[in-house]
């Protein structure tokens, strides 16, 4: 286990805390890219997170000491590689409060996890006249697969609307659930607004209202990096998908957690090596879980990197991660709100909001904000955030989005605010109040 768990977070960040200023939770020196660019204000962790050295080292150690194709070779090195993969799965499962590793399937990321369900479960269980419920808050990854599944199967896609401050409208959701509802898919945390949805409550609610064998699918891409999760306790959520790269792990790895009984009954998603048991000329039987859903040579280094990311986050403490982000969020919201012309989107209640600030500046398109901020080393995203259905409902073509993580500190917030002020000055918005954004 040593190679996987190596490298804990140094607590230097906290120790550096000056007076009331919010220092970073993790030390920047743990992150080679950030350490190498002291002037960079990386505020796009909702898109992807920077990597701690511990993650990079764990992956490198695997390639340098334990690398071979797992599950296949009848020699010691291959056995070791298989063991590393197995350990990584256990490590990730423990971090997410998953007791049975058979229910944790490694995927390429959230997108693949969601497509897996839409294809493997959806094709066999959704029929003409059935209904699939999604929400207006979804990332395209948790919207388009369901929309297309509905089109293929002749089912109806129902879209749950939002309250004015960007939360799911639970009354609307209630009215959408019928005996024909086969799938209810929603995110745990919105990438565009930061909204934290009451997952357990929604899932329990769906259980009572929808068809008895309807499935509840949760997109956890933005929750996994920021919240303490015990997936075994989310009894009414059937499938939970997340990506490694947003939680300090590498790109190309993520997981789908599902119920063993359902996974056993489902047909495989992709066919090939590793997922088979016996291949006859006419018929094939499937390997046991989770391998049945992991066709082909797996991303072992990715799984090891993700496991190391879990260890790193655990050493910071997920409650501390959440508290830290909330502190920066509060600061950013307070300061941005004082700038005339700034419109902030998303829940006002910080308890229902992750470290994401989506905003517009009157008379200035978000792309121009992002370009000007970039000139000062402040990285924010501008655009529709892969959530066009949401942007239509907010009635904006795009927003600028800053998102916080463990390595951010108060200086990043200050740089953001200063950049927005600078943008405003450059565009002399005050000179022409008749201008609207867009």
């Amino acid at each position, binding site marked *: 286990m040593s190679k996987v768990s190596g490298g804990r977070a140094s607590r230097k960040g906290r120790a550096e805390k000056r007076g009331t200023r919010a220092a970073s939770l993790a030390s920047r020196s743990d992150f080679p890219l950030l350490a190498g660019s002291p002037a960079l204000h990386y505020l796009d962790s909702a898109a992807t997170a920077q990597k701690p050295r511990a993650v990079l080292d764990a992956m490198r150690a695997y390639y340098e000491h334990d690398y071979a194709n797992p599950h296949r070779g009848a020699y010691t090195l291959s056995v070791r590689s298989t063991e590393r993969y197995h350990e990584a799965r256990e490590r990730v499962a423990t971090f997410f409060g998953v007791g049975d590793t058979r229910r944790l399937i490694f995927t390429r990321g959230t997108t693949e996890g969601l497509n897996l369900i839409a294809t493997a479960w959806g094709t066999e269980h959704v029929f003409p006249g059935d209904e699939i419920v999604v929400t207006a808050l979804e990332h395209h990854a948790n919207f388009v697969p369901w929309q297309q599944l509905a089109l293929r199967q002749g089912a109806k896609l129902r879209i749950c609307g939002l309250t004015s401050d960007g939360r799911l409208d639970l009354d609307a959701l209630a009215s959408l659930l019928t005996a024909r509802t086969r799938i209810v898919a929603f995110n745990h945390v919105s990438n565009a607004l930061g909204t934290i949805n009451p997952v357990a409550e929604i899932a329990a609610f769906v259980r009572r209202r929808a068809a008895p064998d309807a499935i509840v699918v949760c997109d956890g891409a933005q929750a996994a990096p920021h919240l303490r999760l015990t997936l075994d306790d989310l009894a009414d959520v059937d499938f939970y998908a997340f990506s490694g790269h947003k939680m300090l792990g590498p790109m190309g790895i993520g997981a789908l957690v599902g119920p063993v009984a359902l996974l056993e009954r489902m047909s495989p998603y992709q066919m090939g090596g590793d997922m088979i048991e016996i291949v006859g000329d006419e018929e094939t039987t499937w390997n046991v879980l989770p391998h049945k859903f992991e066709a082909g040579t797996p991303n072992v280094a990715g799984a090891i990197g993700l496991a190391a990311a879990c260890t790193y986050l655990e050493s910071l403490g997920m409650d501390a991660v959440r508290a830290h982000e909330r502190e920066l969020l509060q600061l950013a919201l307070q300061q941005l709100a004082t700038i005339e012309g700034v419109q902030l989107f998303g829940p006002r209640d910080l308890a229902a909001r992750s470290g994401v600030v989506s905003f517009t500046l009157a008379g200035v*398109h978000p792309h121009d904000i992002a*370009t*000007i901020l970039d000139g000062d080393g402040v990285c924010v995203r501008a655009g*529709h955030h892969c959530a*066009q259905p949401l942007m239509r409902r907010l009635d904006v*073509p795009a927003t600028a989005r800053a998102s916080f993580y463990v390595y951010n500190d108060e200086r990043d917030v200050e740089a953001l605010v200063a950049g927005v002020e600078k943008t405003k000055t*450059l*565009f002399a918005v005050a000179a*022409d109040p008749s201008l609207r954004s*867009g």
Partner: protein
Amino acid sequence: MSNLDALYQEIILEHNRRPRNYRVMEGADRVVKGHNPLCGDALTLWLKLEGDRVIDASFQGSGCAISRASASMMTEAVKGKTRPEAEALFTRVHDLVTGKLDVDADPAAKKTLGSLRALGGVARFPIRVKCASMAWHALRSALGSDESSTNGASEISEEP
């Protein structure tokens, strides 16, 4: 001039603030919609033609300062131009924003472009080139195909 100053020159900001020819055109001979799926920018371009000559141009849409200013300047520049003249201007602007044209080394180009030279700042921002060129691609498409008329608005898309 810093890169940012070169991008957001006063004339660009001014056109963004008060875009010219920003209106729906009744009785247009050509209507084309431009769209950049990457950022969601969208624009509609209307042209009125007399024979081979553009006699009026207007646009509406949502987009960043660069795309808006570029569209505004384009509608001004193209009025009175024949189809081949507009095509030649398209090529010049395209070369300018993609960094293939050094106006200071090319007096003829400098003269043709006039104030459109301000769009050259984009060349230092590869991710913004599409913003500057969208309106021009719409122009080209509007002039290029006889099928795109008022009763059948054609769509062009910039690849992300």
